[in-house]
């Protein structure tokens, strides 16, 4: 019946991840953003938490827990609260593993899932976004053309995380008007890893342009085999995950701004005593709680195998706005300090702005 309290196990996971986020991610976030890279040791520590193997069936080497996007959402919020770039770096392999888990053929699961259950970080990724002003996941410009028992991929992708080091890439392409996904192993002929993206935010996550020039792969590499994958469903999972990330970033900004406003004294008292500041914080809190509930509802429906197209879409739509509005308020409340890179709020605004652009780049 209607209830909004995470289970004990979920709460334990939240607490563990929060500790990791607070002690390890927060400590390194600024440095990683400036350097444009996450130290491998930190990635490894994240990997050791076993988030990806958790839901992989035992027969493939995983822990065999039932996959739950709702639990994933809870985890993602904490990691994004820590630092969105580092979180996405640690979770990049999910972009490949989760679609295979959800939509792959048995052969595809057998081939790939065990790789994510090893001791060390297995770099795999997905190529989704395209370098257009107006990108539409339902009408991608990258094409997949059937040729005998092969597929030929052509096009250009942007924002491909860790493309330079990925052992395998899931490439989303337009096959006769519908979006499908194709497994492209490293070193496949015709794949060129291009320049690194230089973005407003998410600077600690190396992302690349990747071009596909007559890239030929076996038809068996189409996700889901001949029948293909349910792209609507995958997109719903991605949208829900993105919304969860937005909740985390927004919450980080809100908490920091709230604590600052209570300390910062001007005109003889903390600025939090002023309605203009206090009301900004109240509205931030309401939107964060509201977005979280919308994300949970969509995730809960997906876990039950129900169609959550509308809920996931509305959650993502709201997340796009909340991520920017809240993090913008965060900068505003810190005034001049909010503008300085030594303080995290400006980074959270830069990262928060990425949420709207991050179609297909967040999964857990």
């Amino acid at each position, binding site marked *: *019946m*209607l*209830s*909004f*309290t*995470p*289970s004990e196990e*979920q709460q334990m996971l939240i607490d563990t991840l929060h500790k990791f986020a607070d002690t390890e991610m927060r400590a390194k976030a600024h440095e990683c953003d400036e350097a444009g890279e996450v130290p491998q040791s930190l990635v490894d520590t994240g990997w050791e938490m076993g988030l990806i193997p958790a839901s992989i069936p035992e027969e493939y080497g995983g822990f065999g827990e039932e996959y739950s996007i*709702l639990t994933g959402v809870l985890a993602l919020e904490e990691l994004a609260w820590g630092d969105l770039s580092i979180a996405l770096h640690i979770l990049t392999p999910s972009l490949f593993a989760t679609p295979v888990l959800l939509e792959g053929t048995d052969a595809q699961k057998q081939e790939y899932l065990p790789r994510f259950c090893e001791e060390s970080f297995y770099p795999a990724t997905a190529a989704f976004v395209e370098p257009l*002003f*107006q*990108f*539409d*996941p*339902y009408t991608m410009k990258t094409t997949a053309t059937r040729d005998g028992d092969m597929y030929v991929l052509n096009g250009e992708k942007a924002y491909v995380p860790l493309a330079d080091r990925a052992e395998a890439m899931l490439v989303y392409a337009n096959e006769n008007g519908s979006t499908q996904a194709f497994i492209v192993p490293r070193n496949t002929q015709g794949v060129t890893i291009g320049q690194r993206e230089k973005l407003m935010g998410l600077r600690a996550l190396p992302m690349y342009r990747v071009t596909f020039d007559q890239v030929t792969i076996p038809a068996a590499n189409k996700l889901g085999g001949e029948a293909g994958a349910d792209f*609507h469903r995958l*997109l719903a999972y991605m949208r829900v995950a993105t919304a969860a990330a937005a909740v985390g970033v927004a919450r980080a900004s809100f908490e920091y701004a*709230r604590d600052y*406003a*209570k300390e910062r004294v001007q005109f003889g008292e903390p600025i*939090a*005593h002023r*309605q203009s500041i*206090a*009301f900004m*914080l*109240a*509205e931030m*809190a*309401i*939107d964060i*709680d*509201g*977005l979280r*509930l*919308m994300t*949970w*509802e969509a995730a*809960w*429906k997906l876990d039950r195998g129900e169609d959550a*197209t*509308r*809920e996931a*879409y*509305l959650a993502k*739509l*709201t997340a796009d706005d909340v991520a920017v509005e809240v993090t913008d308020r965060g900068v505003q409340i810190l005034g001049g300090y909010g503008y300085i890179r030594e303080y995290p709020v400006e980074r959270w605004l830069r990262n928060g702005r990425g949420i709207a652009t991050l*179609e297909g780049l967040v999964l857990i």
Partner: protein
Amino acid sequence: MIDFTIPEDIQQQRKLFELVAKDVMRPYSRYYDEHEHEIPWEYVNRMWPVMKMEWARRVMKAQQELAGERKEKKSSGKKYHFNLQLVFMVEMLSWGDAGIYLCTPGPALAGFAIDAAGTPEQKVRFLKRFAEGDPKWGAMAITEPGAGSDVSSISTTAVRDGDEWVINGEKIFITNGWLSLEASDGLVVVWATVDKSAGRAGIKSFVVPAGTPGVKVTKREYKLGIRASDTAALVFEDCRIPADNILGNPEVEKRDKKAGFKAAMVTFDTSRPVVAASALGIGRAAIEFVKEKLAEQGIDIPYNLPKHKLTAVQRDVLQMEAMHKMAWLLTLRAAAMSDERLPNALEASMAKVKAGKAVTWITQKAVEILGPLGYSTEYLAEKWMRDAKINDIFEGTGQINTLIVARRILGYSSRELK
């Protein structure tokens, strides 16, 4: 566990209330909007048997307590989700007509106050009338010309004289004030101070039944919206009630304790989600109507297009739906917490803030999108915009509720954050 399942019994009830809304509310919406101060008898007569049963149940419970047959006990283990039921009921009835819904016969807030703070004897004495006979109403009289948001500044007085209280003062904007005192054998619960110098600690609630000399309805308001709802001004002039018509403890507690006032304010934590639900019922009506009219023009609302492919109208409607959903989930959360007996002042205020803002925007947008016909009284859209507006005002304005949220998240008292 995180669970969005709506209990089966609530789903069933919702269907019943939808029938009520379609049968005796929507067909009369425009009529009662244009015939302010008439009683919507079609709705009243339809709802009275339902309400009578509910209050008969409560009266019986009180009678059992009085006879010593039963102790006041905590939830008996069966899932009891009263607040959730209320929220769903109010949402659907407001979807029907928010003004007519407010004419629901029964003691309403007055009844909840008596049920919460009254002795078993008082419950039986005051609530019995709502379990029998003809439709009756109850009202809660708090607001005064000089006391709106600042509830603690009310100046209606209650002075003990022998075995009576004597009430003097003026109340305004009382929902069902006239229905309770003049149109039926109902009652009003009046907030008055027994000691102005004690501030909040001096404020108590008193039950004033219809027919008590010394209380008059001096005005029935004409409003922007919810015109079917009775909004009255009352004047108390040497209004005498028995001493045992006071609810709760007559003692003025120590200034810093203010437990009595707090107990009264706690009712707002229950009523705020209900008002939010009412707002969202109106909002849902507006959204559904807009989508219906757009669909007739061949315009549908997709849930899969990137923003740059959305028309302005599609974008607006999606925004309406997103805001509505957020506010509704916040409302469900607040109600669910009430049912779990968790303190929910923060969550209740959050829901009220969001719902009030959301439906003001949603209903205004709806009129805009519907163009010249949206502005016309041929359709109900313009009425819904007028009806919606009150939800950001009564039961605590959006500003007051935002202040409450702010104080809670900052851990500030009213002295620190004004």
